[in-house]
């Protein structure tokens, strides 16, 4: 029985929000960043989930979700003056293929090498797309800052006097 849409949205938002706050606590993210970490995770997962609902292929949806998360993360980091690592990590945690990894092993363990390998490659594509999305977001953010004439933490500007 398929779930109603509202329940799926609640799952996506609350699951990503609380799950990521838990993850953030595990890597000792500063307390003042907990709420915003969860928020970024929920937003970028919602983007990913929405795109898959619009039958955009999964890798593309992951790329766009990570891209969005990366842009939002840099913005949050600048506004709150907290290291960007915190928010970039939060943005990608919900799409990290933990389930894929386990399913791959469970098939390989049962001798179903073909299915296992297929799922493994899917998981790898997901990871690559996450990385590309994060990087693309970083470069775009840098480009926007440069155009706006602001100093960006990625600028090559020499700080040595």
């Amino acid at each position, binding site marked *: 029985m398929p779930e109603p849409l509202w329940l799926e949205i609640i799952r996506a938002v609350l699951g990503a929000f609380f799950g990521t706050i838990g993850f953030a606590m595990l890597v000792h993210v500063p307390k003042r960043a907990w709420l915003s970490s969860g928020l970024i995770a929920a937003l970028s997962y919602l983007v990913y989930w929405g795109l898959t609902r619009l039958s955009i292929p999964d890798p593309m949806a992951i790329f766009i979700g990570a891209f969005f998360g990366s842009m939002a993360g840099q913005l949050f980091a600048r506004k709150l003056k907290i290291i960007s690592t915190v928010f970039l990590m939060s943005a990608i945690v919900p799409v990290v293929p933990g389930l894929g990894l386990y399913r791959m*092993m469970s098939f390989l363990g049962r001798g179903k090498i073909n299915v296992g390998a297929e799922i493994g490659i899917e998981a790898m594509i997901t990871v690559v797309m996450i990385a590309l999305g994060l*990087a693309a977001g970083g470069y775009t953010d840098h480009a926007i800052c440069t155009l706006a004439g602001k100093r960006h933490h990625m600028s090559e500007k020499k700080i*040595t006097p």
Partner: protein
Amino acid sequence: MKLPATTPPESSCMEVLQTAGEIIMENGGETYRAEETITRMGVGFGLNKVESFAVPSGLFISYRGKNGKLETSVKRVRRLGRNLSRVDAANQVSRQVAAGKMNCPQAMEKLKEIKAMPGAFSGWWSLPAAFLCASGFSALFGGNWLAIGASGVVALVVQMIEMFLSRFRKRGLAASVIGGMFTALLPNLLVLVLPALQTELVIAGAVMPLVPGLAMTNAVQDTMRGDMISGLSHGAQAILTACLIAGGALLALDLMKLITGGMV
């Protein structure tokens, strides 16, 4: 030869730079961040020609002191754990120094405080954190209430096992194998008692506290800035961790096969 009783001010500045870089690298900060922080702080202290070069296992710092002498230091760094509070705090200190609001001794004082902040896996609060993380993601993947609860409990137990193990050894790659093993084993045992359990969703949630999300982020961040050595090192760490978790899960599944006689 008799050593001077007091260290000259420049060498204490060197110590401050070393400590700042060390805190960032040891607690899961990116390599580029360590380099940038050191350079920025050195300039803030009024030193000339500050150069820093960091690789995942060490820091190299050099500058021309106020007396014109070139000073260089090498610092061996070991990745201890993941504590972004410390990285963030060190970053705040560097901001203050760069703004000229802090001198060498003040910065050292502050950095010592940061080093004494509670470490990874010391607090009981990693238990509710693991519970929250696992049950949240279990819900996200579509688990019912039973799966959400079971996932949280499994993650909590795994976290307790890891905390127990970290008393003997620093949290390392072995923890990933053991974590992955118990994460797969416990739900498979639970399902023998609770046949309605959505085993796969329980495991999918419970494995989330173990996934190398931070290493992945750092790999991307360092690679993006052209630092291939650190990028590859973080990437390798992420892949290795994932493989070890998966390997642990495979061991657990084989173990289940032995227990149930091939019924899994």
